[in-house]
C-alpha cells in the first residue's frame, strides 16, 4: 500500500511520566496529526498541557511512551538533519564566532571548511548580519543571537523546522520583526514548520492551522484553519484585520485558560 508521505506525521503519540507508579502523570495522549508540505502548524494550549514535552518528542529529543513520529516517512530518531529546531534559548556556543556557530551542523556532517564558510557567509549576508561573521555571540543583541540560531537551523537545509517559543524572550519590536522574517523565509524556501507557542496572536499571525491542546492530560481539542493569505500576514497590520480578531477570540475561548 502506498501512503501519502507528509513532511511530518505523528501517530497516537503519548507520554506518561513514571508509568505504573503512584505518581504516574500522563503528559498527553493520542496525539495524531499531519503536517502538510509548505504549511506552518501552530500548537497552543494552556500551560501545563505538555506542549514542551510534545515538542521534544516531535524533535526526537525525547522518546514517546507510545506512538511514532515520522519525518518524510522515516522515524524521527533515524532522520537526523532533516529536522531543524529553534528554541527560546538560542543555544549558541559562546566560544565560537557567528560564522562557526552557523556552520556547526555542517562541521559535524564533515563538510569541508571552505564549503561551510561559503554557506555560512551566504546565510549571514542574506539575513542581515554581514560584518558580524567574526563576532562572538556575547557581543550580539538577543534578536541578533536568535537570528544566528535560525541561520544555524537553516544551514543544514532541513525539510521541517520546529520552533518552540523562539521569540518569547525578545522585546516586542524585535519579536514582530523576526516573526515576519521567519515567516518570509519559511515561505520562500518552501519549508514546513511547527510552531509551539503560548502567544495566540503569534499563532494566528504565523500559522496556517492552529492545533489547540486541552488541559493535562493534553489531547487535541480542535484544529482551526487560519484562512489568511501570506501577504496579509504582516504582524502589525494584521492586528487591525477583523478576521484576525475573530480568530483571536475563537482561540482564546477554546483555550479555556
Amino acid at each position, binding site marked *: 500500500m502506498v501512503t501519502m508521505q507528509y513532511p511530518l506525521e505523528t501517530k497516537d503519540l503519548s507520554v506518561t511520566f513514571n508509568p505504573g507508579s503512584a505518581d504516574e502523570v500522563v503528559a498527553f495522549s493520542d496525539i495524531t496529526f499531519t503536517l502538510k508540505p509548505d504549511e506552518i502548524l501552530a500548537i497552543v494550549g494552556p500551560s501545563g498541557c505538555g506542549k514542551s514535552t510534545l515538542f521534544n518528542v516531535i*524533535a526526537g*529529543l525525547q522518546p514517546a511512551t507510545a506512538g511514532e513520529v515520522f519525518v518524510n516517512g522515516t522515524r524521527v530518531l533515524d532522520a537526523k538533519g532533516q529536522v531543524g529546531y529553534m528554541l527560546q534559548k538560542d*543555544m549558541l*556556543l559562546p566560544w565560537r564566532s557567528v560564522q562557526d556557530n552557523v556552520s556547526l551542523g555542517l562541521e559535524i556532517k564533515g563538510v569541508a571548511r571552505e564549503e561551510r564558510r561559503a554557506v555560512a557567509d551566504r546565510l549571514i549576508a542574506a539575513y542581515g548580519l554581514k560584518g558580524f561573521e567574526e563576532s562572538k555571540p556575547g557581543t550580539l543583541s538577543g534578536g541578533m543571537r536568535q537570528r544566528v540560531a535560525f541561520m544555524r537551523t537553516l544551514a543544514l537545509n532541513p525539510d521541517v523546522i520546529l520552533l518552540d517559543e523562539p521569540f518569547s524572550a525578545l522585546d516586542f519590536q524585535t519579536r514582530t520583526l523576526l516573526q515576519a522574517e521567519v515567516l518570509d523565509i519559511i515561505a520562500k524556501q518552501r519549508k514546513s514548520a511547527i510552531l509551539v507557542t503560548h502567544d495566540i496572536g503569534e499563532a494566528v499571525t504565523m500559522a496556517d492551522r492552529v492545533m489547540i491542546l486541552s488541559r493535562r492530560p493534553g489531547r487535541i481539542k480542535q484544529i482551526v484553519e487560519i484562512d489568511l493569505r501570506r501577504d496579509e500576514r504582516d504582524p502589525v497590520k494584521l492586528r487591525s484585520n477583523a478576521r484576525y480578531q475573530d480568530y483571536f477570540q475563537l482561540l482564546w475561548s477554546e483555550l479555556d485558560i
Partner: protein
Amino acid sequence: MSWSNLRYLPGQIGLALLIFGLWEGLVRAEVLSAHLYGYPSGIAAKVWGLLSTGELFKHAGVTAFAAILGFVLGSAIGSFAGLCLWLNETVAKIVRPFIVAINGVPKIAFAPLIIVWFGIGIESKIAIAAALTFIVSLIATYNGTLETDRDLLRLMRSLGATRLQAWRKVVIPAALPWMLSTLRLNVGFALIGAVVGEYISSQEGLGYLVYYSGVLYDLNGVWAGILALMVVALLMDRGVTELDRRLRW
C-alpha cells in the same frame, strides 16, 4: 591581587609599613622577644645575606622547579583525565567513590609513601606536587564537564554529532573555565606539595630553609624563607593569570 590597579598601592605600602614598624618597635621595646618572633630589620639583614651568597636563589629555584613541574604534570594529566571521564559514564561511576575517598584524606598524608617510592631527591617533591594538583584538577574538571548545558548536548545530538564530537566541540570548551580556575588553586597546592616534601627530607629548597631555620630557632631565617615562598607563589600566580587571559573564551 590586581597589579594594574595602582590606586591602592600607597595604602597597601602604608599598611605594610605600619605592621613592620609596630613589630620592630615592639621587639625593640622588648615587649616581643626577638628570639621567638624575629623582627623586620633582622629579617631584612638575613634576606640580604642569603641573597649576597646566592643561597636564597638556589633554594627558591629548587622549590620553584619542583612546584612548577609538579603543577604542570598534575594539572595537565588531571584535567585530561577529568575530561575523559565524561566520555564513559560507566567508568566514571566505577571510579567515583575511589576519587571521593582519596580526596577526603588530607593528601599530604601520602607524602611519606611518595618519598619512599621516589627517594629523597627532587623527584619526590615533584611527585607530591603532581599528586596534589592531579586530584584537584581531576575532580574540578570532571565536575565541570557534568555542568555542560544539557540543551547544548541535545542540540549536538540532533545535529547528528557523535559523543566524541560533542566532547570535542562542546564539553571541552565548556569545561575550560573550570580547568583554568583550578589552575589558580593548584599554584597553592603545588607549593604545599614541594615544601612538605622538603620538610620531610631534603638538603635544599625553601622548605628545607624554613624547616632548618625553625629547628635552629633562627626565626628571621624562617621569615626570609616564607617571604621567598610568597614571591614564588606570586610569580606562579602571575603566570597562571597570563595563561588564563590567553585561553579563556
